[in-house]
């Protein structure tokens, strides 16, 4: 199954070109032009990785990141930043973003970061599955309990 990526940026032409490049690299891409729409999509669908612009009109990148971590804590977020917002990107990493890249970004570098972010998500999910299985073995009744 292809890695599911949500690309969030208010620059439509940037989103169009980058999503096409990532599709060529076998990612399943959904796009969003603002934070509100992105959060709506995240509520309805499980993405592996979100690529998120830091400086957007309306709901800014840090606010969107905060909400993503509340809604889908295992979803990894890579922040995209212009020169003046590196501090914001670092703040994002303190709040749980996986990494950041400066615009204009090298697509191969982005590709590598997406793969690493997906690998981390996959590893977390595997640990959770392992823990749940261990829990079921030690207490078979637990499978009957509601979460």
């Amino acid at each position: 199954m292809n890695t599911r990526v949500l690309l969030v940026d208010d620059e439509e032409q940037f989103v169009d070109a980058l999503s096409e490049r990532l599709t060529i690299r076998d990612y399943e891409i959904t796009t969003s032009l603002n934070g509100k729409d992105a959060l709506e999509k995240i509520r309805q669908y499980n993405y592996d990785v979100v690529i998120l612009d830091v400086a957007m009109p309306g709901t800014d990148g840090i606010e969107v990141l905060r909400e993503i971590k509340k809604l889908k804590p295992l979803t990894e977020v890579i922040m995209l930043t212009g020169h003046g917002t590196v501090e914001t990107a670092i703040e994002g990493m303190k709040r749980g973003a996986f990494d950041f890249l400066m615009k204009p970004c090298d697509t191969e570098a982005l590709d590598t970061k997406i793969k690493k972010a997906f690998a981390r998500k996959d590893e977390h999910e595997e640990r959770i599955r392992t823990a749940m299985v261990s829990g079921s073995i030690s207490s078979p009744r637990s499978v009957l309990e509601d979460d």
Partner: protein
Amino acid sequence: MSAKLEIVTESGLQFFGKMTASISHEIKNVLAIINENAGLLEDLALMADRGAAIEPQRLKNMSRAVMKQVSRADTIMKNMNRLAHSVDESINTIDLKDILEPLVALSYRFASTRGVAVQPKLNEGPVTLRTSPFFLMNLLWLCLDFAMDAAGEDKIVELVTQKTEAGVRVFFKSLGGLAGDSLKPFPAEHEKGLCDLLGAELEVSTGNQEIIVRIVEDIDRN
């Protein structure tokens, strides 16, 4: 340096820094789009090498996208150039439109981030002033910056000019949020210092939901 001169200098430097930082951010966005389209061309060329068919329309779309961004960058640089040249002469005779039009353009990103639309309604004919172009732009920026925070629920700031016998009035209207508690003090040190320098008067009218800046026709007669 006298305290007044220090305040005005500080304000001017901060204004210049803020505008050029915003311009650099815009140019970065333009470069990002051109970069992705160039990368996409490379990807398509590689695919063509492997025998994939490339639709000409796809190439035309990319070409148009790049040209659009070049035009956008050109406009950004023109406005930056106008800002840069506003310091050529400390006092000069100018048309107010030559201050307000680049200012509104340069303020677009700040307005957009706050979800506010700035609607200029400027005098049709020239409004000639003898003034300090840079510091006038600085003062009007500070008013516009505050006005964007004080915009009403419709998130619109109307920018209106009105010629008078003594000079000109610049109105920042539709400020339904002027009575709000969370607004910073206005006018503050920078605004007052600039008004002193320019011979301008600044009035905040909560009842009319507007800010009015009265600017004299000739700074030397102040």
